[in-house]
């Protein structure tokens, strides 16, 4: 009896411990997690934690053959590190160390996502995502770039030093030191490699040049009449204020534009051949520079706000890097050495996405419909097969074979996204597959002293193509539509091409110094906001995914300088936070015109509200909500009618839609129907979440796991993708920067997050409120010296050899 009692109690104890020590279903191992000595409580960072230390972290470096000179890091009150070292190696070593110290889990997850390795840690719910990444050739692309980056001694040194800095932190971690997310998800950090940095660069390239309409445009062109097609899908907008101001004279092209080849150059298929992919709205960004003639200080002002995913931990990490020959401040990407957007003692620069199309598709004709070879110029060519093994948490691995052709990897075929038995596999030809060295551009631009240094530096920035804005202390402003492009014949790559002939292959590269650019234009400012890059006088043909609305607004405001009004940094803050909708101004009067016939009380009320609206998408505006909902519904219904109900994944631009709206008298029914629907929605919203614009759009900054507990939902902020302050539901200005190039540089910035990636730290989301309110921090730019006496310095690291 006693023995049985003992056995029962022991078994009970064992099983409870077993249950708490292992993850069950989606539950983390609770015992480990809640253990106050090693679990989540270790991540409860004391709010008064003293981050200063001297030599502590270096004690264990001795065992390894790491040699470095004294490294100093000063942290200001927002935990921005200001680094000083005596050489480049130490500079990138400590940058790697600092990045991983604050953001280890994020660095791990971002590179896992790039490489299609998420299923390893979250299970098969990520399998389709992982397969997509593999089929895009992400790892193939990163390997190509790694070879190029390691062939250059400067970037090789950068990468090796950065990787060693990251690994010196990771190597000494115990379970208790792991970021909270590892404890929740039940996996471990792994060593960093140079390849992971290359993967991160390709992750950004994919984020910014991955968008494509080629497949949808291919079947739309077959379904519509040529007149309809050219009206609804014009190659560029006739009213564009291009990135390179009109009137800029382009040098004659070094190459002739090729003629359109004869013969069967296009592919044809039906919309039903594909799973309709959800159209992801293009990411945007703004940058502009105002010349000293138009500013109160007499010095140029440069502004930039890249619109990317709003996540926590934040995409960006602020840092100042100084060593002999370099003193640069700005934002860096977690997982890559150097500063991506920022300024140094002489110049400042910023980036917006260029959106020229560098990703094309080719229809592949397999031999006998089999998976072994394909036709090319009448010859059979074997596919190069790349076996992709996708490991899956608590399941056997999934093996996908990706066929590589002369064009690139086969992205879609009967085994992937071709549910109706896609008979012609589609291969992808993408600039991001090339081995490129954008890191070298960052290395050089971070050190640039003048415009010549800057232009020399950006010659290595091939993909993702960016509109690179520039301003310096000498008073110059400039912009380059920079990236590697192909000398294409008209319409090449706009539609899916026949992949069985060499006539459709990409032609020669356009020399990088022939990219559109301008220096100190007459108009006294330069602005880019993802609009068309040039007017039609640029001698090479290109297409892209351009948006004009933000550019129209920015140009309107910046044109407003005269002797009685010169711009200040406050004007720039206001413009970055501007919520005026040119789209509403161009469309609403025509929409209201169409409202005829009987209206209900509610409909009258909201129509009147719209009539007196100032076109501002401000946080508390109800009119903004009514307009936005009405516009979305009108846009959907109008094009469903016009395009004969083609699948929902592509529609003409808003710019085309407003032109149609202004000229087309047939759309009154659509206007009325969509207005009634919009009012119904608003009435419902008013009774539930509320009808103010911020309540309707619900801007949320979500943790990468989407866990609400680590996220900031429902922020009270206005804006939308069509206005300068492009805050959407989960995308928006990921870093707002304003730099005035006076003798002592006056720089301001804010990003929606905080320097720490730890949800248990007060530096996790500490800047979000200021970002919401459009407030900025004055950035502390320390002199290039190993001694500092700024009273803004809060903590100091001193690492002695």
């Amino acid at each position, binding site marked *: 009896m*006693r023995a049985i009692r003992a056995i029962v109690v022991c078994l009970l104890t064992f099983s409870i411990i077993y249950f708490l020590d292992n993850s069950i279903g989606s539950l983390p191992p609770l015992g480990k997690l809640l253990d*106050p000595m090693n679990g989540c409580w270790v991540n409860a960072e004391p709010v008064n934690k003293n981050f200063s230390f001297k030599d502590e972290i270096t004690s264990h470096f001795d065992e390894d053959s790491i040699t470095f000179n004294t490294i100093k890091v000063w942290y200001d009150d927002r935990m921005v590190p200001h680094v000083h070292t005596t050489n480049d190696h130490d500079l990138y070593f400590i940058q790697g160390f600092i990045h991983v110290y604050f953001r280890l889990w994020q660095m791990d997850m971002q590179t896992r996502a790039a490489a299609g390795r998420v299923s390893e840690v979250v299970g098969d719910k990520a399998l389709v995502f992982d397969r997509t990444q593999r089929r895009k050739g992400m790892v193939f692309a990163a390997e190509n770039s790694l070879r190029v980056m390691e062939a250059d001694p400067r970037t090789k040194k950068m990468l090796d030093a950065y990787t060693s800095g990251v690994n010196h932190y990771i190597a000494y971690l115990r379970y208790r030191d792991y970021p909270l997310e590892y404890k929740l998800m039940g996996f471990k950090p792994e060593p960093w490699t140079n390849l992971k940095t290359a993967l991160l660069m390709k992750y950004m390239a994919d984020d910014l040049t991955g968008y494509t309409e080629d497949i949808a445009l291919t079947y739309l062109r077959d379904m519509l009449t040529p007149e309809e097609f050219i009206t609804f899908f014009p190659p560029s907008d006739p009213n564009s204020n291009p990135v390179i101001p009109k009137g800029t004279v382009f040098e004659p092209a070094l190459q002739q534009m090729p003629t359109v080849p004869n013969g069967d150059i296009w592919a044809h298929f039906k919309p039903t051949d594909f799973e309709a992919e959800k159209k992801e709205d293009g990411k945007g960004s703004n940058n502009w520079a105002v010349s000293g003639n138009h500013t109160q200080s007499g010095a140029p002002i440069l502004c930039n706000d890249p619109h990317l995913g709003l996540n926590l931990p934040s995409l960006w990490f602020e840092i100042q890097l100084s060593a002999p020959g370099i003193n640069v401040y700005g934002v860096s990407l977690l997982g890559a050495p150097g500063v991506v957007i920022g300024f140094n003692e002489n110049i400042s620069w910023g980036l917006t996405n260029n959106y020229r199309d560098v990703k094309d598709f080719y229809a592949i004709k397999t031999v006998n419909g089999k998976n072994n070879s394909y036709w090319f110029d009448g010859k059979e060519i074997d596919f190069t097969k790349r076996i992709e093994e996708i490991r899956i948490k608590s399941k056997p691995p999934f093996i996908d074979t990706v066929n590589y052709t002369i064009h690139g990897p086969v992205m879609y075929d009967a085994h992937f996204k071709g549910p109706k038995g896609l008979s012609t596999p589609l291969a992808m030809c993408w600039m991001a597959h090339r081995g490129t060295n954008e890191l070298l551009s960052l290395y050089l631009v971070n050190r640039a002293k003048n415009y010549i240094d800057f232009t020399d530096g950006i010659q290595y920035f091939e993909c993702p193509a960016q509109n690179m804005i520039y301003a310096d202390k000498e008073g110059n402003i400039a912009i380059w539509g920079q990236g590697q492009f192909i000398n294409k014949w008209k319409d090449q790559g706009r539609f899916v091409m026949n992949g069985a002939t060499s006539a459709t292959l990409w032609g020669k590269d356009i020399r990088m110094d022939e990219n559109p650019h301008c220096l100190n234009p007459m108009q006294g400012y330069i602005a880019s906001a993802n609009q068309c890059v040039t007017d039609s006088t640029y001698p090479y043909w290109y297409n892209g995914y351009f948006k004009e609305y933000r550019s129209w607004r920015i140009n309107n405001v910046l044109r407003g300088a005269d002797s009685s009004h010169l711009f200040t940094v406050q004007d720039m803050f206001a413009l970055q936070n501007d919520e005026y909708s040119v789209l509403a101004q161009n469309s609403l009067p025509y929409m209201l015109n169409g409202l005829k016939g009987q209206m209900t009380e509610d409909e009258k009320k909201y129509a009147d509200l719209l009539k007196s609206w100032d076109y501002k998408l401000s946080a508390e505006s109800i009119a903004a909500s009514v307009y936005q909902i009405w516009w979305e519904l009108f846009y959907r219904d109008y094009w469903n009618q016009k395009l004969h109900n083609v699948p929902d994944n592509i529609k003409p631009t808003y710019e085309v839609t407003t032109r149609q709206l202004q000229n087309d008298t047939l759309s009154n029914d659509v206007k009325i129907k969509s207005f009634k629907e919009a009012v119904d929605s608003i009435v419902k919203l008013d009774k539930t979440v509320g009808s103010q614009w911020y309540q309707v759009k619900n801007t949320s900054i979500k943790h990468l796991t989407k866990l609400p507990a680590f996220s900031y939902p429902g922020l009270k902020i206005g804006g939308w993708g069509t206005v300068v302050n492009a805050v959407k539901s989960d995308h928006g200005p990921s870093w707002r920067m304003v730099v005035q190039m006076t003798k002592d540089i006056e720089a301001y910035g804010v990003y929606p997050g905080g320097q720490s990636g730890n949800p248990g730290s007060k530096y996790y989301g500490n800047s979000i409120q200021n970002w919401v309110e459009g407030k900025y921090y004055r950035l502390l730019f320390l002199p290039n010296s190993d001694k500092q006496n700024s009273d803004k310095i809060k903590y100091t690291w001193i690492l002695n050899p």
Partner: protein
Amino acid sequence: MMRFVLSTIMIAALGAFAEHIFAWWSIAVVAFLMSFLFNLKPWLSFSSGFIAIAGFWLFVIIRADTANDHILSQRMAMLIHLPNYTIFILVNILIGALVGGLGAWSGCFVRRII
């Protein structure tokens, strides 16, 4: 009574030591061994393990949570759908205390067979 107090103090102290070095469930092993040594009545054994670990965890957690201004505990409470951080801390301590208590109870019953 003396033995109960001594047992509780020993479990808490050695438990803290063990948990610092070994896996979290070493608290159960410590409770088992102490209870085996002190040979209290079953319910006193259980209480001793329970109170020892509850006290030790409470001390560590309150210290960490106060220094952290409840940032983490609030997020953790939300994560596992508890209304507030106080309840999260109570649940957290209850789990540890239960493991401590059961470890001690096991030790006591095993001793009784021998």
